[in-house]
């Protein structure tokens, strides 16, 4: 478990650097460190599905972000912050931290399933009857494509709508541009 906490501290430090650094490119690289750290973390938490998704999405979004940063001039975030604003944000973060501690106390211990504490929840049905109901050895696939099929349909619709919107918005200007280049 020691490596788990080392990874956690590494991710927290990288996230702080990503927020506080003035160089946009190193901020994006620190963001990538947080993302890859969390994907390793998912492997330790025995969630390989999420780890695979996290790592491939992280790679693709890093490529997009770095291309977007290299394309434009490097901008530096400057300007001094007022003392009052810092105090307010520290107090709010501390209150959220206390609330988070209270929430984590109600969670079951690490490695135990939730239905030992709360019998009859949906996860119990999924784990006990998943293979018989759906025939899928991967319980994640059984949940997202069989038990929770509507969720996946909604997710696919959101992705589809965003792509349609983006291509429609950029189509006309892109077409004109390509014609200009051909000339």
């Amino acid at each position, binding site marked *: 478990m020691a490596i788990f906490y080392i990874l956690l501290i590494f991710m927290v430090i990288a996230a702080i650097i990503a927020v506080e650094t003035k160089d946009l490119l190193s901020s994006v690289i620190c963001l990538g460190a947080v993302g890859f750290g969390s994907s390793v973390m998912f492997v330790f938490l025995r969630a390989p599905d999420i*780890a695979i998704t996290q790592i491939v999405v992280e790679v693709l979004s890093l490529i997009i972000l770095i291309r977007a940063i290299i394309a434009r001039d490097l901008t530096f975030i400057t300007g001094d912050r007022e003392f009052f604003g810092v105090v307010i944000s520290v107090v709010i973060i501390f209150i959220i931290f206390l609330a988070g501690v209270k929430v984590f106390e109600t969670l079951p211990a690490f490695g135990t399933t939730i239905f030992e504490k709360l019998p009859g929840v949906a996860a119990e049905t999924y784990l006990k009857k998943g293979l018989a109901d759906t025939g899928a050895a991967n319980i994640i696939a059984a949940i997202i494509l069989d038990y929770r099929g509507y969720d996946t349909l909604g997710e696919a619709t959101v992705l589809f709508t965003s792509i349609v919107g983006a291509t429609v918005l950029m189509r006309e200007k892109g077409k004109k541009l390509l014609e200009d280049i051909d000339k």
Partner: protein
Amino acid sequence: MKGMTIIVKTIASWVKVLIFLFGISIVLFGHLTPGGGFAGGVILASSYVLLMLAFGREFVEKNLSLPAASKIDCLGAFLFALIAILGFVFGGVFFVNYLVKYSQPLRLISAGTIPLSNIAIGIKVGASLFLVVLTLSIFRLRQSTDKKE
């Protein structure tokens, strides 16, 4: 010469096939091993993004143009909805897994409609993430030509 150096081009032309095959295997075995439609689709898209970074946008558009990618995107979404509607036709409930009783678990062809849905989602996610990068690249081109003016 568009794209990156000859070292990157050579490596990319070897690795692209492996990445694409890995994406297909992640999609097809999604109901048996970790993975699934979304993760596999992102890997399929990233093989094309690698080609786009190494060889330039024109090379990729010869293989998979923007209208063709849109059509593949629509096809994936339509297939996924069709599988759900077929559940209503054969099983009586929208999204019901009506093929599960014809198959044994732990085989490649098992779990009824789940692998079919995985394939549909893989096609959809791959095409749409490829479209995101392609559209952003065209958009970036516009910004750079605006600057020259």
